[in-house]
C-alpha cells in the first residue's frame, strides 16, 4: 500500500490533477480500441443514436446549454483582453504584450492564475451563502445566453416569452451580489451588496419599459421574431423607430451590468472591492467572469432589440450582381478521383515550400527550419481564411453570425470606452437619475410609440 501511497502524497496538487487525467485518457483509448475491435462500439452508437433521436427536444436543450456554458468562458476572455488593451491604448500605454501575439493570451493567463490561487473562506462568513453567491452571479448571465439568437437558426431555444425569460434570469444576478455582500462579514461588502440591490432593481424598471416600445412594434416577445421583423434595409432597425428607447435602454443596461459610470457596487476607490472584497481565488474569478459575460449579453441584447440582430445593414447580393461577380464554389471533389490523393498528400508540402522559400531567401538571419515553420503556419492561416470565406459565402448563418458579432463587439467597445473615460456617479445621483429622468422618459417613449402605432394604422 505504501508503495503507491508515498509517491501519491509527495505529488504536488497540480500533479494530483494531471496524473489521473492521463490515466483516464489511456484507459479510454484502450477501451475505444477494444470496443471497435469487438464491434461493441458501433452497436452502442446505433443504440444511443436511436435513443437520442427519439428525444430530440431534450438533446437540443442539453447541447445548447453545454455549448453556451462552454462558450461563456472564451467570451469573457476576449472581453477581458479587450478591456485590458483598449483602456491601455486610450491611456497612451501599450498594455499587455508579453504573452501571446500582442499579449492576447494575458486574459487567459489571468483566468488560469485565479484558478490556481488559494480558496479562502474567512472566519465569520455565512459559509453556504458565501459559497453559493459566485455561482448564482455567474449563472445568471450565462442562462441569459440561452435565448439569444446569434444567427438564423443558431439559438438555444426559440421561446415565445424570451424577453421575459431574459429579464427574469438576468435579474438573478442581483441576488448573487446581495448574497455575496451580506455573507462576507465585511462592511464594505455589505454596502456593495446593498448598493447592488438598490441600483439594479431601480434600473430594471426603465430597462423593461424601454423594451415595451419594441414589443409593441414587433407584436411579440420572441427575440427571434423581433430580429426577423427588422430584416430588410437598415431603416427597419428599431434603433431608428425607437431612438429614445434605444438611449434609455443603453444607459439602463450600463447600470444593469455594473459598468462605469454606474459601477457603484464594485467601486474601487470607495468600497475596496465592493461585494467581492472578501473573495479570493476562483470564487472571485466567477465574479470577474460574470461581469464580462454580463457585458456581452447586454451588448447582444441591445443588438438584437435595436440593431437588427444578425441582419446585414445592406444587401450585398445586388451589389455583387451589379458588379458582375459571381461565386460558384460548389466543388465536386469526387471528380478529381486519384488526383484527390495527390492533392491531399502533396498539397501541404508544396504549399509550405512555396511560402517558406521566399521567406527564407528574403530573411538571411532565419534558419530554414524557422522559415518552414512560419510557412506552415501561414499556409494554415490562409487555408482557414479560404474556408471561412467559402463558409461565409455558402451559408447564411455564418454571415449572420459575423454581423451579429460585429455589432455586439461594437457595444462592448463602447462599454470599455466609457470605462476608460468617465468617472463614477454617486449613489443618490444614480437613483435620482433613474426615478426622475429615466422612468418619465421611458413612459413618454411608451405613450409616443402607442400613439404613433395608432396614427400609422389609422392613416393606412
Amino acid at each position, binding site marked *: 500500500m505504501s508503495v503507491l501511497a508515498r509517491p501519491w502524497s509527495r505529488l504536488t496538487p497540480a500533479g494530483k490533477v494531471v496524473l489521473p487525467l492521463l490515466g483516464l485518457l489511456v484507459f479510454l483509448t484502450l477501451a475505444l480500441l477494444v470496443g471497435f475491435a469487438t464491434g461493441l462500439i458501433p452497436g452502442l452508437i446505433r443504440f444511443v443514436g436511436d435513443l437520442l433521436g427519439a428525444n430530440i427536444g431534450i438533446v437540443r436543450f442539453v447541447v445548447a446549454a453545454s455549448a453556451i456554458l462552454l462558450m461563456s468562458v472564451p467570451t469573457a476572455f476576449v472581453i477581458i483582453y479587450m478591456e485590458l488593451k483598449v483602456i491601455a491604448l486610450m491611456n*497612451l500605454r501599450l498594455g499587455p504584450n508579453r504573452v501571446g501575439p500582442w499579449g492576447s493570451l494575458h486574459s487567459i493567463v489571468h483566468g488560469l492564475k485565479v484558478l490556481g490561487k488559494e480558496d479562502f473562506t474567512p472566519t465569520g462568513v455565512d*459559509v453556504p451563502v458565501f459559497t453559493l453567491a459566485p455561482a448564482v452571479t455567474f449563472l445568471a448571465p450565462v442562462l441569459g445566453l440561452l435565448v439569444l439568437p446569434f444567427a438564423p437558426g443558431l439559438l438555444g431555444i426559440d421561446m415565445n416569452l424570451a424577453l421575459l425569460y431574459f429579464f427574469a434570469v438576468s435579474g438573478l444576478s442581483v441576488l448573487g451580489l446581495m448574497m455575496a455582500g451580506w455573507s462576507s462579514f465585511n462592511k464594505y461588502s455589505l*454596502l456593495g451588496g446593498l448598493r447592488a440591490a438598490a441600483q439594479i432593481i431601480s434600473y430594471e424598471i426603465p430597462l423593461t419599459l424601454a423594451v415595451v416600445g419594441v414589443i409593441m412594434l414587433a407584436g411579440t416577445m420572441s427575440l427571434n421574431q423581433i430580429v426577423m421583423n427588422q430584416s430588410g434595409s437598415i431603416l427597419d432597425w428599431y434603433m431608428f423607430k425607437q431612438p429614445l428607447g434605444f438611449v434609455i435602454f443603453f444607459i439602463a443596461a450600463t447600470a444593469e451590468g455594473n459598468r462605469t459610470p454606474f459601477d457603484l457596487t464594485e467601486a*474601487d476607490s470607495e468600497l*475596496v472591492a465592493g461585494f467581492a472584497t472578501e473573495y479570493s481565488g476562483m470564487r472571485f474569478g466567477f465574479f470577474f467572469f460574470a461581469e464580462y459575460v454580463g457585458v456581452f449579453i447586454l451588448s447582444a441584447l441591445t443588438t438584437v432589440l435595436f440593431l437588427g440582430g444578425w441582419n446585414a445593414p445592406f444587401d450585398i447580393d445586388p451589389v455583387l450582381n451589379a458588379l458582375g461577380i459571381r461565386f460558384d464554389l460548389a466543388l465536386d471533389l469526387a471528380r478529381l478521383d486519384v488526383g484527390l490523393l495527390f492533392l491531399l498528400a502533396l498539397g501541404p508540402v508544396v504549399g509550405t515550400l512555396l511560402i517558406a522559400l521566399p521567406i527564407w531567401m528574403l530573411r538571411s538571419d532565419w534558419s530554414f527550419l524557422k522559415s518552414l515553420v512560419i510557412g506552415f503556419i501561414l499556409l494554415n492561416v490562409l487555408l482557414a481564411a479560404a474556408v471561412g470565406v467559402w463558409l461565409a459565402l455558402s451559408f447564411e448563418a455564418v454571415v449572420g453570425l459575423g454581423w451579429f458579432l460585429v455589432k455586439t463587439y461594437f457595444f462592448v467597445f463602447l462599454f470599455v470606452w466609457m470605462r476608460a473615460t468617465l*468617472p463614477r456617479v*454617486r*449613489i443618490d*445621483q444614480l437613483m435620482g437619475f433613474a426615478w426622475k429622468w429615466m422612468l418619465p422618459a421611458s413612459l413618454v417613449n411608451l405613450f409616443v410609440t402607442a400613439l404613433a402605432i395608432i396614427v400609422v394604422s389609422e392613416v393606412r
Partner: protein
Amino acid sequence: MAQQTRVRSLDDPDVFVESPATIYDAVPPYPPRTEREAEFYHLRDGEMLINLGPQHPSTHGVLRVVLKIDGERVVDLDPVIGYLHRGVEKICENGTWHHAISNCDPLEYVASMFSEAMPVLACEKLLDLQVPRRAEYIRVLAWELNRIASHALFMGWLSLDLGGLTPILYGFIERDEIVEMLNALTGQRVLFNYLRIGGVNGDLNHDFMSRLGDWMSHAAEQVENQTKLINENEIFVGRTRGLGVVDRATALRMCATGPVLRATGIPYDIRRAHPYSVYNELEFDVPTREEGDSYARYLVHVDEIKQSIHIIDQVLHQMPDGTVMAKIPRWIRPRPGRAWVSIESPRGQYGAYVMSDGSDHPFRMRIRDPSFFNLSLVGHLMPGNLIADTMAIMASLDPVMGGIDK
C-alpha cells in the same frame, strides 16, 4: 470550511477545539478615555463604524478615518494619523544643517523641492547670507516645475477617487516629463536634495534645458488636454460642485492655506503676501474662486498650473549669469537665535520655526505642514455627506501623509 476556526487543543494534540473567532473592529479595545471618545463610539440605532484605511485606495497614503455611518451617510468621523510618523524633526536635530536638507526631503514627497527648502532658507536667514541671484532664479524654476508636477497629480487623483481611470495616467505623463527633467538637473526623481545652504547643487545643464524646451513647447496644450477630459464632464462637475463647501471664516479659523483658502476667495499667497526669493520681480496672478467647494479647488489648481507656466517663461527670460553657490564656511554654525521662514508650497504655507544654539546642528526644528491644517477641515466637511463624497472631499484637500505625520 469550518476547519479553519478549529485549532488543535493544547492539552491533547489529537483533539480539535473551536477557537473564538477573531473579529477586527474599529472600536478600540479599551473603555473610552475622553468625552469625545465616549460620544463617538456610542452607536445609536442603525449606525455603524467603518474603518477607512490605513490601507485604502483613496486615503492617499496611510491615513485612517473611522467613519460613523448611517446607511451611506456619514454621521461623524474620527481621523487617526501617525501611521507614517518617522520622527523627521528629531532626526534633523541630531544631524548637521547639511543633513537636515535631505532629511526634510521626504516630508512632502509629492513636491519635495519645497520641504527641503525649509532648513536651507532658515539657515540662510540665521546666517544672514546673500544667495547669488542665479541660484535664486534656479530655485524658483525648480519650485514652479515641481508645483506643476504636484498639481498634475492632484487633478488625476481627484478624478481617480471619483472613479475615472484615465486622467491620472495623463497627469502622470506630464509629471514624468517634469520629473525626468528634474532628474537631469538634480540626479533624483522624487527626493531631489538639490537646494544647498547658499545656493543650489549644480548649475543648469544641457540635458535639463533641452528637456525643458521640449516640454515648454507643448505644456499649455497638455494642460488643456487634461482639463478637456474632466473640466466640463457632467458627472465630474455634478459630483464636485457644491460639495465640501468651506466658508471663509472656517477656512481662516482652521488655518487653511493654499488652494483650499484661495478657493474661498481670499487671495492669500505667500509669494505675493510676503515675497521671498525673487518672486517680487516676477509677474503672476493669484487665482481665486468664490465658491469654496471641491470644484472651485480643482479650478484653482488648474489656473495655478497656467500661472506657473507663465512664471517659468519669465524666469527663463530673466535668468542672470553668475555663480550658483555663495561662499559659505565648510562647517556651518549659525549664530544663536530663532528664525521663522515660510514658502508657498502646492498645498499652502510651508513653514519652519528653527532655533539655533550656535552649534552645527539645529537646536530645535518645527515644521508647519499645510496638509495637516487643510486635512483638519474634514471634520467640518464630511458629516452629512455620503461615503462616496468623503473620497472627493479628501482628494480635493490634497493631503500628503508624509508631511502630516512627519
